[in-house]
C-alpha cells in the first residue's frame, strides 16, 4: 500500500507541511525532511520551484524565486532525494507546476519519483480532466497518487468527479484565494467544510490555505482528516533557517 494511504488509516488528525526545495539554502532539502519527520509531521510536500507560480501568494513566490536563484532544478532535487528512503518513512509528495514536469518528460519524471520513493504529486495547473484523459494510467503505473484541489466555488458534481478520480486524499482549499492569504476561518468557510462533510466522499480531505498555528489547525481538523501548512513554515524558515523546526511543529501539534 502507498505510504499516503497507510498514513491516512492512522486514527488521528494529520499535519502536512510544505516547503520549497532549495530554500532557504540549496542543500537544506534533506535536513528539513528529516527534522519534520522526527518531530511528528505526517506528510511532507516538497515544492518544486517554478518561475511563475500562479496559485501562490507572495511568501511562496519569493521562496521559489530564491530557490531558483540558489540553483534548484528538477534534476538537482532528484539528486538530493537519492537515498532519502534510507533515512525517512514519512509520505513524500512533490508539489510543482506542470511546465517543469512537461519539460523533464512526464514519464521520466514519474519514473524518477518512483525510484526516489516519492508517493504522490500535487500539480495545481494540471486540471483533473486532462489528468483523467492523458496521465492517470501513467501515474498509476509508477505507483504515484495524484492529489486534486477543491475550493468553496467547486460544484458538488465536480467534487464528486474529483473524488472518483482520486486515490488518497482531497486537498480542500479553505477559501477562494492564493496561498498564504487568510487569517482564521469565518462562518462561510465553516459552512463550506460542513457541505463537503455531508457529501460523504470516499477520499478523506485535508485542508490547506490559511493554516498557520495550533488554533487554525484545530479549527480545520474539526471538519477534516488533516491540515496543511505552507506559507507559515516558509516564513519560519526565512526567519530561522533550518533551526528549531521542532519548535515550529510543536506549536501546531504536540508529539503524541
Amino acid at each position, binding site marked *: 500500500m502507498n505510504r499516503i494511504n497507510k498514513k491516512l488509516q492512522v486514527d488521528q488528525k494529520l499535519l502536512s507541511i510544505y516547503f520549497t526545495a532549495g530554500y532557504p539554502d540549496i542543500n537544506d532539502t534533506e535536513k528539513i525532511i528529516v527534522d519534520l519527520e522526527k518531530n511528528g509531521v505526517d506528510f511532507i510536500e516538497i515544492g518544486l520551484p*517554478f*518561475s*511563475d*507560480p*500562479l*496559485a501562490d*501568494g*507572495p511568501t511562496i*513566490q*519569493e521562496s521559489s*524565486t530564491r530557490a*531558483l536563484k540558489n540553483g534548484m*532544478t*528538477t*534534476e538537482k532535487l532528484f539528486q538530493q532525494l537519492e537515498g532519502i528512503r534510507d533515512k525517512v518513512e514519512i509520505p513524500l509528495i512533490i508539489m510543482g*507546476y*506542470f*511546465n*517543469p*514536469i*512537461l*519539460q*523533464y518528460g512526464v514519464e521520466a519524471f514519474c519514473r524518477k519519483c518512483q525510484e526516489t520513493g516519492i508517493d504522490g504529486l500535487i500539480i*495545481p*495547473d*494540471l*486540471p*483533473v480532466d*486532462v489528468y483523467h484523459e492523458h496521465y492517470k494510467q501513467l501515474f498509476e503505473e509508477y505507483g504515484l497518487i495524484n492529489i*486534486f*484541489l*477543491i*475550493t468553496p*466555488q*467547486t*460544484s458538488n458534481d*465536480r467534487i464528486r468527479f474529483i473524488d472518483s478520480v482520486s486515490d488518497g486524499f482531497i486537498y480542500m*482549499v479553505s477559501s*477562494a*484565494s*492564493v496561498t498564504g*492569504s487568510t487569517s482564521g476561518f469565518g462562518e462561510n468557510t465553516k459552512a463550506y467544510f460542513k457541505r463537503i462533510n455531508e457529501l460523504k466522499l470516499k477520499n478523506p480531505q485535508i485542508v490547506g490555505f490559511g493554516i498557520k498555528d495550533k488554533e487554525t489547525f484545530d479549527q480545520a481538523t474539526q471538519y477534516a482528516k488533516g491540515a496543511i501548512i505552507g506559507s507559515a513554515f516558509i516564513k519560519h524558515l526565512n526567519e530561522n533557517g533550518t533551526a528549531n523546526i521542532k519548535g515550529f511543529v510543536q506549536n501546531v501539534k504536540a508529539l503524541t
Partner: protein
Amino acid sequence: MSYQVDEKGYYGEFGGAYIPEMLYPNVEELRSRYLNIMKEESFQKEFKELLKEYVGRPTPLYYAKRFSEKYGTKVYLKREDLCHTGAHKVNNTIGQILMAQKLGKKRIIAETGAGQHGVATATVCALMGMECIVYMGEIDIDRQAPNVARMKMLGATVVPAKSGSRTLKDATNEAIRDWINNPVDTHYIIGSVVGPHPYPDMVARFQAVISEEIKNQLKEKEGKEDPDFVVACVGGGSNAAGAYYHYLDNPDVGIIAVEAAGKGVDSGESAATSALGKAGIIHGSKTLLMQTGDGQITEPYSISAGLDYPGVGPMHANLYASGRGEFISITDEDAMKAGLELAKLEGIIPAIETSHALAIFETRKFEKDDIVIVNLSGRGDKDLNTYIEYFNL
C-alpha cells in the same frame, strides 16, 4: 483541417485550459456562455454600434502608393492606428466589457505590458462606469509613465507587479491571482489571444472585425475579397489573429507572422518565440514559449514593449507548427528603420510593434501583382521617446 479552435479549446496540439482548480469556476462560466452571449442580437447590436460610434470603425484600408512603388508590389495598410486609443486593442476591450456586463460582473481587472491594453481597458471601464484595476510590472511602470498617467486619468487603479521579473508576464500572474482571490464579481479582460480557453478564441473573435472589414474593403478596391498575403506583427498575437481570422482556412491567402528578434535571434536578447520557444504551459495555455531546459519561463527582450511576451497565442503556435503561417523575425534595428521609412514615404508614424511587420519588405520579396495587406496595428505616438533616442531626433 481547420486552423480555428476545436470544440475542446485546442488549435492542433496547442491551447486548452491548464488552470488551477481555483480558477475553474470563472473560466468554465465564461467558456460555457461566451458563444451564446456573442450570438445575442442585443450584444451584437451594442458591439457594432460602439465600434462604429466610439472606436471609429471601419478603419480605412489604405493603398500605400509610395511604399508599394519602392518595394515593387501592392501594399495596403489596414489602419488600426486610427482606432480610438491608438491601436487595435480597443476592439477586444469593447467586446469584453460588454461580455462582463452580460455575465453580471462588477469589477474589471487587466494586465498590461507597455500600457496599451491597460489604457484600452481603463477607457471602456470609464465608458461603462465600472471599477478597473490594472496590473503592471514595476519595471514597466517606470518605463511607460505617460500610459500610467492616462490610466489614472481614466479612473483606473494601477497596481505594480513586484514578483518575478516585474514585467508583463508577472503582471499577468498577478491579474490571475487577483481573479483567484475574487472569483465571483470580477471579470479578467486579457489583452491578447493568450491564456486558457476560451480566451484565445474569444479575443480572436472580437478582433476578427479587422479581417471582416478587409474582405469588404478589398472587394470594393480590387474586385476580390482575398489578398495574396496578410502580414502582422506577433507578440501575444491579437492584432495578427484579427487580421488573419477570416482567411485562416483559405489556403490561397498567405499568412505572414512577424516576431521581434530583438538584438538578433541568437543574441540572448530576443522575443522570437517561434524560433526560440518550445511547447509548454504559460498562463494556462499549452503553446510555444521561451523557457530554460528546466521549464522555467525566461524573460524576452525587444525594443518594442508590445512584443516582449515570452509566449505566443496557441493559434499562432499551431500556424507555425503546421506550416500554415510563414514566420519571420526582425531585429530592433531593422524595425526602427522601417518605422522611419513609413513616416517619410506615407506620412504615417507607426508603433514600433507594427514597424516590425513593415520591415520584412527589405528581404521578403513579393510579385508585382501580389496584393499584400499589412495590419498597421498601432500608431507611434507612444513610442516617440524611443524613436527620439534611437535616431537622435
